[in-house]
């Protein structure tokens, strides 16, 4: 923190009452400082807590950082402040020349010994272990979290600690990892394999026999088949008899009640949580289960169920470890031609109150369902005048009407009275599409917009059915112009692609605990040609109830299921799931690749002594990522000898290799390792966030790596392993971790955690795009393109983007999107979750993008109790103004607030504010620290591009260097950093060039000697 404090505190200098022996005092410099600085930073006042008379003229001594800050402040013109006396050009030159020379000398002396041994952080540990053993487990969840460095990075040797808890975890994980990687090849596993086919009354003989669990559908609606595992695997014989004492919260009569049969092993069910305005449609079809887009897309909601709606299979018997494979047969169902008003209303421009010529009007005043005559008696009048019992039957109306022009229509309802809303109104359009909508009486509005629908020219049919007590005057159909946003959104919704996504977890007696696995897959084929979608999961990574004792019929079941991940259009296209197949444990081959990579081919494979030594040597050379010493191999071989006494060959090898995985040679990154091995490791943990591959190690072995750095960097950045670097660096540099701490307010909005996930993915994709095409850093500030998928595009109100994958979309500034400053991930992470937060956004921008972190508030700040009683009701902008007017706060806040205020036209989640109230309430107009007036984020972007691009580039370079080196930068690194900045500027701030220059700099290369 100290560095941060100093950078901003600033400025300086000196008159000295104490001179360090041997340091001569440059009188001319002293004079300048006395003339311009001492007033604010001397014995009378010491702004920023800095007493220049207490600084030493030994520039490389205790006040090195202060001197360095002085130079920065003078160079950037921040000091002296605008209203104070300014240095003449000659004086400025004199001061900066002297300081620059002094600091250079110090820098050359200092740049040694600030590099410290660093252990693998959680991500590096996971990647390395997985690369090494050909596994894909999220080991990091089993380790304590890593500390952040002052710069915000979690790969800093100084801040990464090793504790006994770490070691204990390493020992456990190593054993678990080897258990997964190594098998007994002569003993292929037993495989559990089954298939569930869905369909309404697919097994008519079971109709009415027994309901499934909970609110699920009956056993006649799905078919269970046990499938045979293919050779060489053995078939798992599934137990089919179980005893329990409890069923949910009920205790069963008679001890140890027995449940027998396949229907108690596997149970199909749906998960549909009814939301306020949502009504479940008829989801069980004759040929499968219908899944409209998920409308509560979160695992973290209060009700604790997997995303709704979904279809799932509960498994009483399931594998206890390893991978499994899920095959889902499904097809796409087009989006309905009806959509509730609420879905497009965000984009609706006006709400006409009276009918205009051309509107289609269906009179409904005869459509009165019921009239209360006595307390419990209703008189029901149908259109034909007949009466019926309101408790049993719905009231119905059936309209046939002519339409002149095909097109999108909005349907408004004029009503006289709504007495009760026990059930919603159901609309059926042309006997095909249906939609149910709840209505509520509103004294002020007797005309309610209900829905949008597509009507074809000619005869159309609308059926309305309800049990609600409602008195309707008429329905009015208003044609919507095809150029309106709501019309465009309607069509975007029709064109959207549904995505199928699996999840797995635990079914508790009332709740579920689940996580997704694998990437969502597009469902494109229609009913005529259903496709099979394959997903792979890992028991270890999912909240599956492994090894649990259980006395409750309903609890601790494994649950697998799928839902429709296209969450942006709530009434978008659906998916019909026909069957789900499960196979586990699943192996890619037998013995698996992970096993074969350890038990290498060898002529000595029959001689245990020789073979074990070969295996161990081969393994630790990779594991320790260097040329292993004889003593290191010997110690492991001795360990194996011991182990072999009590275990079989495979097990003893397993134990030995697990031991190697707990040794510091594996756990630490040996940057300074012998020869070029250190460099290979350093490079690989920078650009891959994982271990060096064979090619890098071979080059290192031949001492050819240094000579081939450029082509190697290029190769590494093209390799998909570089994604881990880009994601990890981006996440830490831009502080995306803050997003996970933003609470999702209970009744806030429907997107939930999935929006967070995809918002972060957008930012990753953007930076990947920059690296892929070696684009300029200026794109970070402003770009002519964005990387979007259909969910994010809809969230931003951008048309014509389909698919779950993030694609490059070029559109200029039309939607006020471009550059990471407009990313929801950034704007949301720096909000309060409910409101935008100019201070958070300002601090973020200053520290991450400009690398000018404001100092933390000073110690002992008293609570500011505003004197103005109206303060509490002011907008944040006005509150900030009051705050800034306080002289104690102004120095820092004038450097924070303006940045944040320029984002004010983006709300908490990062959506652009468009409503008239918002436009009145919020404004991005502000004055930047250097006096420039701006009115929008676009102005800020222009200003940065024109005047501060070098700062942005320097910020990226400094942050990335700190990440690459795994340490904090110090003053001593300044010259090397400046060289990279200069080079980058000449090259147009291209991002790959920056990465390359960091590696080629003395900082990176010379430290491993």
């Amino acid at each position, binding site marked *: 923190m100290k560095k941060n404090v100093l950078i901003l505190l600033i400025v300086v200098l000196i008159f000295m009452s104490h001179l360090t022996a041997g340091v001569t005092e440059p009188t001319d410099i002293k004079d300048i400082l006395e003339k311009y600085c001492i007033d604010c930073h001397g014995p009378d006042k010491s702004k920023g807590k800095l007493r220049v008379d207490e600084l030493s003229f030994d520039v490389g001594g205790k006040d090195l950082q202060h001197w360095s800050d002085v130079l920065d402040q003078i160079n950037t013109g921040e000091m002296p402040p605008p209203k104070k006396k300014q240095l003449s050009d000659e004086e400025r030159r004199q001061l900066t020349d002297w300081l620059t020379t002094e600091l250079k000398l110090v820098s050359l002396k200092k740049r040694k010994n600030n590099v410290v041994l660093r252990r693998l952080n959680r991500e590096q540990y996971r990647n390395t272990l997985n690369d090494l053993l050909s596994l894909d487990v999220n080991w990091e969840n089993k380790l304590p979290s890593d*500390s952040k460095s002052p710069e915000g990075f979690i790969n800093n040797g100084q801040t990464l600690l090793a504790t006994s808890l770490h070691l204990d975890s390493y020992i456990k994980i190593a054993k678990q990892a080897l258990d997964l990687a190594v098998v007994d090849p002569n003993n292929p596993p037993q495989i559990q394999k089954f298939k569930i086919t869905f369909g309404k009354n697919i097994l008519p003989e079971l109709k009415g026999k027994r309901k499934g669990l909970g609110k699920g559908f009956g056993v006649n609606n799905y078919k269970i088949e046990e499938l045979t595992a293919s050779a060489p695997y053995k078939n798992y014989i599934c137990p089919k008899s179980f005893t329990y004492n409890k069923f949910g919260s009920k205790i069963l009569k008679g001890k140890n009640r027995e449940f027998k049969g396949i229907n108690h092993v596997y149970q199909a069910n749906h998960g549909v949580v009814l939301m306020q305005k949502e009504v479940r449609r008829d989801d069980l079809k004759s040929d499968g289960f219908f899944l409209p887009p998920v409308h509560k897309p979160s695992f973290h909601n209060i009700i604790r169920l997997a995303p709704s709606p979904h279809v799932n299979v509960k498994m009483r018997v399931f594998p206890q470890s390893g991978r499994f494979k899920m095959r889902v047969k499904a097809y796409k169902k087009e989006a309905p031609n009806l959509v509730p008003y609420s879905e497009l209303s965000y984009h609706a421009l006006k709400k006409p109150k009276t009918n205009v010529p051309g509107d289609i009007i269906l009179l409904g005043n005869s459509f009165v369902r019921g009239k209360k005559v006595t307390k419990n008696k209703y008189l029901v009048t149908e259109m034909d005048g007949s009466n019926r019992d309101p408790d049993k039957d719905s009231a119905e109306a059936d309209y046939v009407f002519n339409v002149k022009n095909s097109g999108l229509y909005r349907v408004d309802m004029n009503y006289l009275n709504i007495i009760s809303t026990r059930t919603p109104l159901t609309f059926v359009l042309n006997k095909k599409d249906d939609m149910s909508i709840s209505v509520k009486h509103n004294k002020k509005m007797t005309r309610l917009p209900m829905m949008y629908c597509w009507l074809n020219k000619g005869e159309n049919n609308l059926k309305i059915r309800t049990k609600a007590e409602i008195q309707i005057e008429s329905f009015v159909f208003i044609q919507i112009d095809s150029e309106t946003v709501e019309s465009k959104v309607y069509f975007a919704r029709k064109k959207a692609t549904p995505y199928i996504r699996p999840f797995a977890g635990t079914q508790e007696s009332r709740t579920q605990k689940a996580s997704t696995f694998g990437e969502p897959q597009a469902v494109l084929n229609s009913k005529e040609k259903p496709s099979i979608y394959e997903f792979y999961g890992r028991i270890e990574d999912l909240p599956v109830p492994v090894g649990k004792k259980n006395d409750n019929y309903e609890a601790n079941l494994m649950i697998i299921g799928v839902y429709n991940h296209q969450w942006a259009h709530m009434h978008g296209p659906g998916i019909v799931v026909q069957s789900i197949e499960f196979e586990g444990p699943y192996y890619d081959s037998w013995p698996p690749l992970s096993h074969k990579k350890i038990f290498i081919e060898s002529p000595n494979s029959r001689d245990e002594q020789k073979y074990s030594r070969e295996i161990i040597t081969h393994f630790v050379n990779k594991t320790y990522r260097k040329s292993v010493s004889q003593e290191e191999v010997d110690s492991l071989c001795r360990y194996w000898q011991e182990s072999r006494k009590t275990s079989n060959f495979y097990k003893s090898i397993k134990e030995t290799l697990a031991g190697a995985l707990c*040794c510091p040679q594996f756990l630490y990154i040996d940057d300074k390792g012998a020869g070029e091995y250190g460099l290979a490791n350093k490079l690989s943990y920078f650009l891959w966030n994982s271990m060096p591959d064979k090619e890098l190690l071979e080059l290192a072995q031949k001492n050819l790596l240094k000579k081939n750095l450029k082509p190697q960097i290029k190769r590494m950045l093209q390799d998909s392993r570089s994604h881990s670097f880009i994601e990890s660096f981006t996440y830490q540099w831009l502080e995306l971790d803050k997003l996970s701490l933003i609470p999702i307010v209970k009744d806030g909005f429907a997107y939930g955690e999935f929006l967070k996930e995809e918002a972060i993915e957008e930012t990753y994709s953007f930076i990947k795009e920059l690296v892929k095409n070696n684009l300029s850093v200026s794109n970070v500030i402003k770009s002519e393109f964005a990387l979007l998928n259909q969910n994010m595009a809809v969230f931003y109100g951008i048309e014509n983007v389909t698919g779950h994958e993030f694609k490059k979309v070029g559109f200029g500034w039309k939607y006020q999107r471009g550059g990471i400053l407009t990313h929801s991930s950034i704007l949301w992470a720096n909000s309060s979750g409910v409101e935008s937060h100019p201070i958070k956004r300002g601090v973020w921008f200053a520290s991450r993008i400009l690398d000018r972190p404001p100092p933390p508030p000073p110690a002992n700040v008293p609570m500011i109790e505003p004197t103005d009683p109206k303060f509490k009701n002011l907008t944040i902008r006005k509150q900030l103004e009051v705050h800034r007017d306080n002289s104690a706060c102004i120095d820092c806040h004038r450097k924070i607030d303006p940045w944040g205020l320029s984002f004010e036209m983006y709300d908490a989640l990062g959506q652009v504010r468009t409503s008239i109230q918002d436009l009145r309430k919020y404004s991005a107009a502000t004055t930047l620290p250097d006096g420039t007036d701006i009115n929008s984020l676009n102005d800020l972007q222009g200003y940065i591009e024109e005047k501060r691009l070098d700062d942005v580039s320097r910020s990226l370079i400094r942050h990335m260097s700190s990440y690459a080196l795994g340490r904090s930068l110090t003053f001593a690194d300044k010259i090397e950093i400046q060289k990279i900045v200069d080079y980058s500027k000449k090259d147009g701030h291209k991002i790959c060039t920056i990465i390359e220059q960091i590696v080629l700099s003395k900082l990176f290369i010379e430290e491993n000697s």
Partner: protein
Amino acid sequence: MAQKSWHFDRRTFLKGVGVSVALPFLEAMGNDKTTSQIKRCCFFAIPNGVSLPPKNEVAYKDGWHWFPKNTGKNFAFPKPLEPFSDLREQLTILGGLSHPNSRKMHSHLSMDAFLTGVDASAQSYKNLTSVDQIAAYHFEKETRYRSLVFSCDGGVGSSGRRGTLSYDRNGSPIPSLNNPKEIFENLFTSTEKSKDIRKKAFSQKQKVVDLISENAAYMNRRLGKVDKEKFDEFLSALSSLENDVKRSQQWLDTAIKDFNADDIKIDVQAKHAPQDYYRTMLDLIALAFETDVTRTCTFMLNKENAVGIGDTLSQIALGIPGSHALSHDKTEKRYYTWGKLDQWMSSHVAYFLKKLSKIQEGEGSVLDNSIVMYGCTTSTSHNPSNNPILLAGGKNMGFKHGRYLQMENDPNLSNLYVTLLKQLKVPVKTFNDSDGEILELIA
């Protein structure tokens, strides 16, 4: 961290001392008569201040000020402390204390210093041993586990925003645990397996530890001076792990007291059910005290500066923001909201105290043999003085309760720790920068 001939030390210790020393303690432990002499301590901390409306605010008049209006025996529980009303005679409310170092530094650093009193203002500062660990080192030979260190986030956090309250004898942060299920399994279920299996597992672990130390020695030889210093941390962790293994082996023959954990919701997740989460963690501490597997515990209920999950929990549970957001809130109702948050946090601690008071031990309850401190690192969010502190239990150790003591002239919080340690019969004279004791607490 003098670990130069560490490798040999370890061997010598193993052969010479280990097993023979263990037995007398075990015998002592098996003896029920000793329960009345058991002394425990437990520390809870919250960050970012509490509701302290100025006297002219309506919220003050409405009783939402954390500190009571009257001092001494006649105090009335203010609303934020209402959950403690039933425990009046078991607790003392303390005002005025703070760490002199904390008063000088940026307030959000004060959690780092809460149980140590360190000056954390320098970027690369080194912490001191925390008060709970001083007690833990003293008790360690008598308990199965040295101490419990809990938080909502787990790990150690980052320097300046630590995620743990405890620091070992080198001043290194001790990683906190936050997953009830793992904690339960580590502490209690290992005993379900047969003794033979456990014995084998421990000896296997010991072998791995030997292998690691052998290879660590090879590695250490190659390191330069700077790296060697860093690597000491690894060696020290290894030695601590080895002690744990050894301790487990020593305790192999002693069964954990019978216990019933049916009511503990070990599967709970903080972000799903914050209240259940807090209570489950507290249930685990109570269970650990009841079964005497450890005698010291710390639990950071929330991290400073809203950098942890803790600040989101009240939002999920009650729909009100966390304490950091509240400290920056300027709306009219904020002291009511803040007071409600304080009340909620108080309710967890009160739940814990009541639970301890219901567990019989000797003549009294577990609470009578446990001193529990609950406090906030600052008074208002950016003001690390006048720490709100509540002290409960420990009747058998001589603590006198039923009062609100407001102390003048900023007495050193470390003085309180001296008093606590002395009553725990830990032989200390001072604690870090302490300059006295708080004798008013003692009967």
